[in-house]
């Protein structure tokens, strides 16, 4: 039920941030989305959408963190595996 899907914001209608809507592209499927709760969203942003509402703008830097962490961990793991 709490499923939310990331989509790319491809158009925005209306300038009043409280009543904005826009269209988001979900891997080829484009849907009309209510943007009332993401006043900060701009064209090209990835938004997380649940039942037709954007709930957040995905932060690119934060999204990359797990992979940076894994890269660092990979180096650490290899060091630990060196036989003594």
């Amino acid at each position: 039920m709490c499923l939310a899907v990331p989509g790319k914001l491809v158009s925005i209608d209306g300038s009043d941030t409280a009543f904005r809507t826009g269209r988001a592209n979900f891997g080829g499927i484009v849907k009309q989305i209510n943007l009332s709760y993401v006043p900060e969203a701009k064209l090209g942003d990835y938004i997380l959408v649940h039942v037709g509402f954007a709930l957040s703008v995905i932060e690119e830097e934060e999204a990359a963190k797990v992979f940076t962490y894994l890269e660092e961990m990979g180096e650490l793991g290899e060091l630990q595996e060196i036989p003594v």
Partner: protein
Amino acid sequence: MKYLDEYRDAAAAEKLRKAIERVTTREWTLMEVCGGQTHSIVKFGIDELLPDKIELVHGPGCPVCVTPLELIDKAVMIASRDDTIFCSFGDMLRVPGSEKDLLMVKANGGDVRIVYSPLDAVTIARENPAKQVVFFAVGFETTAPANAMAVHQAKQFGVGNFSILVSHVLVPPAMEAVLSSPQNRVQGFLAAGHVCTVMGYTEYEPIAKRYKVPIVVTGFEPVDILQGVLMCVTQLEEGRCDVENQYSRSVRREGNLPAQDLLSKVFRIVPRKWRGVGEIPRSGLGLTREYEDFDAETRFAVAAYTAEEPAECISGLILQGIKKPYECPAFGTRCTPEHPFGATMVSNEGACAAYYQYRRHLVRQKVA
């Protein structure tokens, strides 16, 4: 798709699995709160990848599953009226009521419609002024902002023939109910990433401290869940009980403030009955005075109706993490998705349905 595919990467998952194996020295029981996470865990076999010392138990976070029987009956009563168009998310239609479900109402000629968004129900109401249009407002904090906006718009535009049947529940009181049960085995939580996208995670901080449990806000893809498990187990091994955020690409500590703002206008906190669990104080949402004209329970005079839960279904114990689906004598035999006894077998996110779909071998073992 960006922000989905990379979090299903097998090499990343394997690295995290190894890291979990390295940090785990003792037995730990973790609960994933959200039904969406349960579905991912069982679908991708994440529980089977983890070291034997780590057990994942499935939490109460499936709103379809925890909606009490009497509310389904109320939905059936309202949907059966000739003057009504009853709108709902698709997964509520097959949840069994005392005598029938919403799909049977539809089959008997009732106007029951599946909608994608609650705003679609408001549009239907504007297009059908001679009919009463009711939306079944089920969900956790994730769905509440959408339902709040539907009621708010209906009020703003004077759509008087629209109302909602409210069945909104809140996650933190359910976690506290699990932790204060004498049968509780849960030592750490993976909190629900989309609930926290709306609400933030400050309300989990006192729970972590009071019950001495680590809580890690976690996403829904395999890499997210494995990293959430790693963060939670690391805390347990180090004797910490903090609230941490694995799902930081979407969740901010304070949550979504514009959404919380409208929520506090449209909804107030009320006690709610949870299917199989009973009433939990301050565990749900009801409409505030300003919006109470849009309450379908009052409009159709069904508020006083009550119903007893069927005795044979053990979904209450499954929702609290006390039993696994295959421990139910009816699982996979008399109770199947085609003929469900309870909601946990109906909803895609219900633990019983997930085990039925992906772990049928456990049924075979049980029969043998």
